[in-house]
């Protein structure tokens, strides 16, 4: 799968900085979109999400896509972000049996994939557990 640099670069606010949208109606959107997906308003401003959240649910996935072989198996979580949105996202730095519902998690930047054709490495946001003593 070829990755062309602009396709990753242009998503940098989403992938690296966790920029979301906040509508006048109170709805918080991730990724950012200029139109509110609840009320249809265009009064949506950009906000930087804290990256803190609660792990509501998780799974361990044993199938992968080409270019993602190095992170097998993949831990994936349903996360309620502090600002409201519930998202499904990859987890990182996790050992099996360590996860439980209700765990606190935080966003970190990690290598996502590498393109064998042009050597491009894609980075992006994953989530890791906030362990006791971390804070």
């Amino acid at each position, binding site marked *: 799968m070829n990755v062309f640099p602009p396709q990753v670069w242009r998503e940098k606010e989403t992938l690296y900085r966790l920029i979301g949208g906040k509508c006048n109606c109170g709805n918080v959107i991730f990724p950012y979109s200029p139109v509110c997906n609840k009320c249809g308003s265009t009064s949506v401003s950009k906000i930087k999400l804290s990256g803190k959240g609660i792990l509501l649910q998780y799974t361990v996935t044993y199938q992968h896509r080409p270019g993602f072989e190095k992170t097998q198996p993949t831990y994936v979580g349903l996360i309620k972000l502090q600002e409201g949105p519930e*998202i499904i996202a990859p987890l990182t730095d996790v050992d099996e049996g360590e996860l439980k519902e209700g765990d606190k998690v935080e966003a970190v930047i990690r290598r996502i994939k590498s393109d064998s054709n042009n050597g491009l490495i894609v980075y992006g946001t994953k989530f890791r557990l906030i362990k006791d003593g971390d804070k």
Partner: protein
Amino acid sequence: MPNVLISATSMIKIDRYYEYDLMDLATQAVVKLLEKTNENIKPDVVIFSNTYAEKTVSQVSLASKLCNNLGISAMPIRIENGDASGGAAVSTAYYLLKSGEIKSALIVGAEKMGDFPASYLNEIVSENLNEKYQEKVGLTTQSFSAIQMKEYMKKYGVTYDYFAQWPVYMHKYGSENPYAYLKFPVDLKTVKESQLVSDPLRIFDTAARADGASAILMTNEELGKKISENYVKVKAVGFSTSEFRIGEIPSVHGALKTLGDVKADLMEIHDSFSINAALILEEMGYPRGKSLDNLNEIPVNPSGGLKSRGYPGGATGIYQVSEITQQLLGVFPGHRISGNKGLVISTDELGTSAYTILLER
């Protein structure tokens, strides 16, 4: 306003056809269909229902190419709406015919998914995820489904065995369907011990991805009655969109609501995952947390569904409509359910859009 009929249907067996390309399969379905009509049909509209042709066969302009291969001039439309492409195609044709200006529409669903290893197929299907984040960070739809399952298990206090009932039923039905890809029965033990895809989701909970093609001819009443005495009516269609949500499929709820209070005698639903079957049935009013416990009483997916009949991407919805049509006419060559009203629920992989199609004998 003109009544809309389904005047003819055809299917080829869903399989891995290393020897045929996309247009070969589409053409085979059309040839089978033409054999069933009294006269040489020159449809006003040709709709090609397909989701993944760019990635799988490096092809676009599918409907135009099909027209030119068949030696006909028509209004060419390729319709894509994820795995609900078939529902979108049939619903579009329904309204085109309702206009009165279009008299006939040939709809061909065809997809090639059989050439690829699982990882590449996961890549293809991940095109359903959003561009900014989900697709980029390497997620697969299976993870979404596994999380959906775990939340369901927690909410209703059921174990994995609850979901395993679905593939068992589907393979029971599919083993009777000559067009089915995985044409064999499985027992509970086999399902429970099958490959773990994304805990707790197992391979038998997922859709069997393969090649397929199915064609239907939709016409107005006047023309349809000339073509064949064996027709069904398209009574109504419904549609809705909604984001992926835990615990429900709002798009299915919405699409059913627009159909009104429908009591169908049988139905084909898009069971991309076993959990989706449960959630769809529960949107229809079957008891929440228990829908899969009473499958002997629910007239659903006599084809074997995506589990056993198989899942040929954007052709799936056309198979569903062909199957229900053949059921209502009493000519479906597999497990039969009798009745006069049949319902198709065509959704995409994660249920972010849904079409409902009500057929009546």
